[in-house]
């Protein structure tokens, strides 16, 4: 009997958690879909394309629930039990709507399957393998750097507190966080794998939106599978799609806003303007760079305004869209401003010693030449530098396909709808460049430009499809795409080898975490502390995994007395030296404290006990 129980426990080590997370996430997305579909039916908003109706419904439902949780957080009502009960009641309420839409859902599934089948055996099975790979990643516990640092860490603190409070020791705590409100659902159910599955689910909706772009903008639904394959094998997608990041969500809401604005421009119906405003607001609520959606919609609106006979309606629509978007984004930005006096990230005193202000490019004492090189030079060379040279954070790049293939679009006649896509991508990219010049002198991460890559994938497929007059050129470009897709797939397999091993051997959660996070065994030591004293991690890396009270190092101390006083006031008795970027610095954390005793260490990470009386 005991051995049978052991066998059961071994078999269900992480597989059961993954399976339950998959069921829970599917139910959650059905809830989003049901709610959104209900809103659309009651407001008589119709989308002719079932796939567009599906994406819009999920977006509306997710936005409504995310905003409801945000409101609960403002009123300190975000307790796990309340969230669980509210969601269960909502699910029961939308079951009739889901049943009503059952045939439509089955129809969407069938049409997507026939699309994959029509793309040929190799391409179709390649796509399925990649999607299943991403799904497997989505069924493992979160281990991504940003997720553990703030996407999940801050939400965990808010949930424990019952709502928003100023997490002054985490510089990223006041970013707009609509997606994290949805991740909070997973934490409320006590299963953080749901958070990763939600991220994967949003990725799948984004893939559907890319297929829609191919169908409605490029006019050829057969381009969908190649476009999705290209998108899935971008290094940026490989790094982000199944992580607890928000860039995929931001790109999705931005794309849906573009879709809805186009519908408004074509029909002049105010309900589409309302939808556009809501999705633009969701993009703004998701990430600070979501503000760029306003630039895109403005440019799109101006293009329509120039060619329209009813300019007044377009202008009215744009005002409505802008007002709703700003109204949606405002609570997050006001909260950020009240807590941190800025809507951007604050560089805390003791964060990594890094010169955030050192600009890229050649340094010179001549201001004019400096500006010329750093502004004009960077703008002109941006296409090449974003393609060839590795950017900040994950040392990522666009990859060659954008710069290699998209210039050939100049040689073909571009229909209005495809032109809209190009304009949107350029408007977004220009916004990223302006942001780099103004705020991020040391460069931006490629994932901030995820929207550009989302739009570029169908455009790459479309451009190649238009080059039929040049068969040799077309063949060459197709070969390049195949090479990059194969390399991307190889990278996907290589990058996540720990994850494949964890799935294949059905590792326990702890064993998996220890295999990918060198600091994990010290974090386990931190979590085993029983004296209720506060731990001070030096950096906010992996903060999500800490279960005991903690305050991340948040300031510098001029004197030892000042440090001692602060530690005593906050009951800080432990220091967790957790610099993952430079572990050599960990052994000498807080050198001004002489009397500290190492009580756990592994792989260059240390947990010190501080004796305050003997400073």
């Amino acid at each position: 009997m005991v051995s049978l129980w052991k066998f059961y426990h071994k078999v269900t080590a992480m597989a059961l958690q993954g399976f339950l997370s998959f069921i829970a996430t599917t139910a959650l997305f059905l809830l989003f879909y049901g709610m959104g579909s209900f809103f659309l039916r009651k407001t008589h908003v119709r989308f002719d394309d079932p796939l567009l109706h599906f994406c819009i419904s999920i977006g509306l439902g997710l936005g409504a629930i995310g905003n409801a949780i945000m409101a609960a957080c403002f009123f300190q009502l975000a307790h796990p039990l309340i969230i669980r009960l509210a969601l269960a009641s909502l699910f029961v309420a939308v079951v009739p709507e889901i049943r009503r839409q059952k045939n439509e859902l089955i129809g969407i599934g069938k049409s997507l399957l026939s699309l994959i089948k029509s793309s040929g055996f190799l391409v179709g099975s390649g796509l399925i393998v990649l999607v299943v790979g991403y799904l497997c990643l989505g069924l493992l516990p979160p281990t991504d750097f940003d997720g553990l640092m703030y996407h999940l860490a801050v939400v965990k603190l808010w949930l424990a507190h019952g709502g928003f409070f100023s997490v002054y020791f985490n510089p990223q705590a006041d970013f707009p966080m609509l997606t994290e409100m949805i991740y909070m659902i997973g934490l409320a159910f006590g299963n953080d794998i749901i958070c990763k599955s939600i991220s994967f689910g949003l990725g799948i909706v984004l893939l559907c939106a890319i297929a829609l772009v191919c169908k409605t903008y490029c006019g050829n639904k057969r381009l969908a599978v190649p476009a999705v394959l290209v998108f899935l094998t971008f290094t940026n997608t490989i790094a982000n799609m199944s992580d607890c990041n928000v860039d995929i969500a931001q790109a999705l809401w931005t794309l849906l806003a573009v879709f809805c604005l186009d519908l408004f421009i074509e029909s002049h119906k105010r309900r589409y303007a309302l939808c556009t405003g809501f999705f633009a607001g969701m993009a703004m609520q998701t990430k600070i760079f979501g503000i760029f959606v306003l630039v895109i919609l403005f440019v799109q609106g101006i293009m329509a305004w120039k060619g329209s006979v009813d300019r007044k309606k377009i202008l009215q629509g744009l005002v409505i869209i802008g007002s709703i978007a700003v109204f949606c984004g405002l609570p997050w930005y006001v909260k950020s401003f009240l807590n941190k006096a800025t809507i951007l990230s604050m560089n805390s005193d003791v964060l990594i010693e890094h010169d955030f202000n050192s600009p890229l490019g050649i340094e010179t004492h001549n201001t004019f030449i400096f500006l010329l090189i750093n502004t004009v030079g960077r703008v002109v060379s941006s296409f090449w530098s974003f393609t060839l040279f590795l950017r900040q954070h994950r040392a990522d790049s666009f990859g060659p396909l954008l710069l290699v293939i998209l210039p050939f679009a100049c040689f073909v006649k571009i229909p209005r709808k495809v032109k809209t896509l190009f304009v949107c991508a350029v408007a977004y990219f220009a916004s990223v460049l302006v942001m780099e010049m103004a705020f991020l002198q040391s460069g931006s991460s490629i994932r901030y430009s995820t929207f550009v890559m989302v739009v570029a994938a169908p455009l790459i497929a479309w451009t190649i499809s238009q080059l039929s007059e040049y068969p040799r050129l077309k063949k060459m470009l197709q070969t390049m795409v195949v090479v990059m897709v194969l390399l991307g797939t190889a990278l996907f397999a290589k990058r996540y080898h720990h994850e494949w091993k964890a799935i294949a051997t059905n590792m326990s959660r702890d064993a998996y975490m220890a295999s990918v996070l060198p600091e994990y065994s010290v974090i386990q030591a931190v979590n085993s502390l029983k004296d209720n004293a506060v731990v001070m991690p030096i950096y906010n890396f992996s903060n999500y995994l800490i279960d005991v009270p903690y305050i991340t190092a948040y300031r510098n101390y001029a004197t030892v007395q000042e440090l001692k006083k602060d530690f005593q006031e906050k009951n800080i008795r432990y220091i967790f030296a957790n610099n993952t970027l430079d572990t050599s610095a960990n052994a000498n954390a807080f050198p001004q404290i002489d009397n500290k005793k190492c009580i756990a260490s592994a792989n260059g990470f240390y947990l010190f006990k501080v004796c305050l009386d003997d400073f």
Partner: protein
Amino acid sequence: MMKKHSKLVLNAIAVHSVAIFCLSLMLFVAKWFPYGNFITRLQQWLYRVF
């Protein structure tokens, strides 16, 4: 539907595309599959040149 254009420009863009593709392919392989000393040294040389 192709536009009228100069063949020279088309060829120039094709050459540019091939060059960019080869270059970024090499950098991609060096970054993500750094198993060859040759590619790593070539990459270092490229960074010096650019």
